[in-house]
């Protein structure tokens, strides 16, 4: 772990709402959200569906503007993003999709394909380099998105449920790879997941959000030593304590959107 005391992401009093001119109505997605992520830290964000996780991530990625409050990504470079939605370009082959961030930087095709070859290995798509996305399964497309974000080699990685559609085996492998890359590179990672297991396996800290409009309900330090063994972890009493804590926080908060 290369967590320092420098701050990497600062979210301060962030409020974000969506306005619908047709009905002159508004949806408040985030209200006064504050948290920060230190440089090199791996933070997971969990919270009920529709609570504003994606919205927060989009504001941090500078894809949306805050209504009030401030968001800052400290230090050079823009964050790399893995989107929750299917975001693979249908007109590019798997390898071109993955190498796209390098193309943006003006790298030659030969070089960028060389540089991203190991990412194709990493996500297990070796025979599919030249396939177009419509020839892939749902999980395979998701793996392409992950590889694309890793290709950027940014200091900050924003990941929105990146392993959502993967079988456990592939998911575990990619989790391990992500941790390895994170550990070796000192990247800052903000990782949205709906799996408490996953959050506890990966994170230094878990932020638990309330249901919409999202606020931070709890900021839990996850103190397990690294590298973490998935099976070992589950034998640890503290794992279940934390799981229980997160669950009860979510339970107190997550109700069907309309039942509140």
């Amino acid at each position: 772990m290369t967590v320092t005391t420098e701050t990497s992401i600062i979210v301060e009093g962030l409020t974000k709402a969506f306005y619908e001119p047709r009905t002159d109505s508004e949806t408040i997605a985030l209200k006064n959200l504050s948290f920060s992520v230190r440089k090199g830290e791996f933070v997971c964000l969990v919270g009920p569906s529709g609570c504003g996780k994606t919205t927060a991530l989009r504001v941090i990625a500078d894809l949306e503007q805050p209504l009030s409050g401030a968001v800052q990504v400290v230090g050079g470079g823009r964050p790399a993003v893995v989107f929750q939605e299917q975001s693979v370009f249908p007109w590019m082959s798997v390898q071109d999709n993955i190498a796209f961030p390098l193309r943006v930087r003006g790298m030659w095709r030969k070089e960028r394909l060389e540089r991203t070859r190991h990412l194709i290995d990493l996500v297990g798509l070796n025979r599919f380099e030249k396939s177009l996305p419509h020839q892939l399964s749902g999980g395979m497309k998701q793996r392409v998105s992950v590889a694309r974000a890793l290709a950027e080699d940014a200091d900050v990685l924003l990941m929105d449920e990146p392993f959502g559609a993967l079988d456990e085996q592939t998911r575990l492998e990619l989790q391990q790879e992500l941790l390895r890359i994170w550990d070796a590179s000192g990247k800052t990672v903000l990782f949205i997941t709906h799996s408490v297991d996953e959050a506890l396996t990966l994170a230094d800290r878990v932020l638990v959000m309330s249901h919409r409009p999202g606020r931070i309900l709890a900021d839990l330090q996850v103190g397990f030593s690294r590298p973490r063994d998935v099976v070992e972890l589950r034998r640890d009493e503290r794992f279940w304590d934390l799981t229980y804590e997160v669950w009860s926080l979510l339970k107190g908060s997550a109700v069907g959107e309309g039942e509140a």
Partner: protein
Amino acid sequence: MSATNTNTDHMRPAENAVTAELSTQEQARLRAPFHRERVFRNFSYFSPLVILLLWEISAQLGAIDRRFFPPPSAIAETFLSMIVSLELFRHIGATLQRVAVGFLMGAIPGLFMGIFLGLFLRPRQIVGPILAALYPVPKIAILPLILLVFGTGDMSKYVIIAIGVFFLMYYNTFGGVRQVPQIYLDVAQSTGANRYQVFTQIALPSALPQIFTGLKLSAGTSFIIIAAAEFLGARSGVGFFIWSSWQTFSVTRMFVGIVTISMLGYLTLTLIDLIERRVVPWARN
């Protein structure tokens, strides 16, 4: 390894969170861009006036020959006198009526043909090439034949417009339907939707954005075509007015006609834009 910073109010009752409201300033800031947008948009409808302005200036400065490009002020003068004498209205009425009928006669079949061939492979393979072969037939060359079949009256003008509109609507609708994501068709099929339902519930709405492109192209083209069609066998209509003015070298009157028909077209396009904004609310922006 345990909660260090649990937000103190995390046990607030959930209702509280839902009643969370924006401050007045936030409310205002949230709406501001939309209001600004609306204002800007309303102004932007008048941006074509810039052309007239440039034209007026060039004419006044003598940069363009006033005998052949009379300044908009002169055109406006003639325009007003023709409005007062109601002369123009007769022509406008005739043109609008022809455009409306011809447009519908072409757009409806074009729409249906586009959806139909977009959805079904075999008809597409057989009928598609036939339409592709008919499309480039030079309409002006077959005008006498159209007159032969439909007479010199308004019907032949409807038909001429309808032919032009048909192909624009057909190709755009077709393209739109071909781009309907397969998953939507799969959903429909899995619910047991019949062909008619796939037609109306899936293909049509999903292709709407491109259908609107087709409608805009068709509307613009209708006015272009009617101007040409009214050169033939008509005694009324803005196209006739333009043509007869030109025959007698009444340049200012001719420009009154050109500006009138362009304005009619512009208003129609703008109207379609407004409708699109209402009917396709899910599109970007």
